[in-house]
């Protein structure tokens, strides 16, 4: 077992443990902090796959901007006391059972897919994830969706201001 595999399993275990901690934390602030740990682990996976641009963007956009927005809203509404009402235990059990059934069905589907056998994701090599190649593709083939996404951001900004305005 070489270093890449050890790093892969270490990051996967960290991400799954933190994702479970997001669910079981009573305090929403702790959930946000555990979710930031998940995002760091996923960025580590991107670096292992040599997708360096996406690793940095994931840290800046998700762990930087979106999580700060979540923390800001939680602290604005003073939710850090555990004010969540009790849900019936059989409702929780039904949710866990249905999620587990989904996982079981999909795993068994992947196990018997013959198309996937012998395929491997290229790690540590391959330079399509570098910012040079992604930028060339983004500004030549994908320039129309890129401009449309700027219009989407403008409409989201206007929508957030209109919804959040005190009338």
């Amino acid at each position: 077992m070489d270093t890449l595999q050890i790093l892969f399993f270490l990051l996967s275990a960290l991400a799954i443990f933190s994702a479970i901690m997001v669910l079981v934390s009573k305090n929403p602030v702790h959930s946000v902090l555990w979710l930031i740990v998940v995002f760091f682990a996923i960025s580590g996976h991107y670096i292992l796959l040599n997708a360096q641009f996406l690793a940095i963007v994931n840290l800046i956009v998700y762990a930087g901007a979106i999580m700060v927005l979540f923390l800001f809203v939680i602290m604005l509404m003073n939710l850090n006391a555990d004010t969540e009402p009790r849900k019936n235990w059989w409702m929780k059990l039904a949710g866990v059972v249905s999620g587990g059934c989904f996982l079981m069905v999909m795993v068994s589907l992947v196990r018997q897919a013959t198309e996937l056998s012998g395929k491997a994701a290229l790690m540590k090599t391959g330079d399509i994830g570098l910012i040079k190649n992604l930028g060339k593709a983004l500004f030549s083939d994908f320039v129309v969706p890129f401009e449309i996404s700027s219009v989407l951001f403008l409409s989201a900004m206007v929508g957030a201001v209109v919804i959040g305005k005190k009338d």
Partner: protein
Amino acid sequence: MPIQYYIYFSLALFSIGIIGVLTRRNAIIVFMCIELMLNAVNLLLVAFSKMHHGIATTNNAVSTAGVEGQLFVFFIMVVAAAEVSVGLAIIVMLYRNTHSVDINFLNRLKN
């Protein structure tokens, strides 16, 4: 690393997100679980793009196949950022009107 390991890992994260959406009642935590599911899908897209690139470079050493998958992840991040800004504004309005972020209060939208 075999592609199956990435699929299992992403499925585990996605299922944890589904369980969170189904079991928690705090609207903000439901929202965070949706972000978790989006990230699982992003990781799987990057892994498949590297798999595709690895197959394409065995035939043609200068191929740039697989760039589309990583750009798709970029656009998913763009849409997620827009979605979070509008969704958190809706949650703030819900809290301002009901003094709670319990998602069961959203059934007042019926009448």
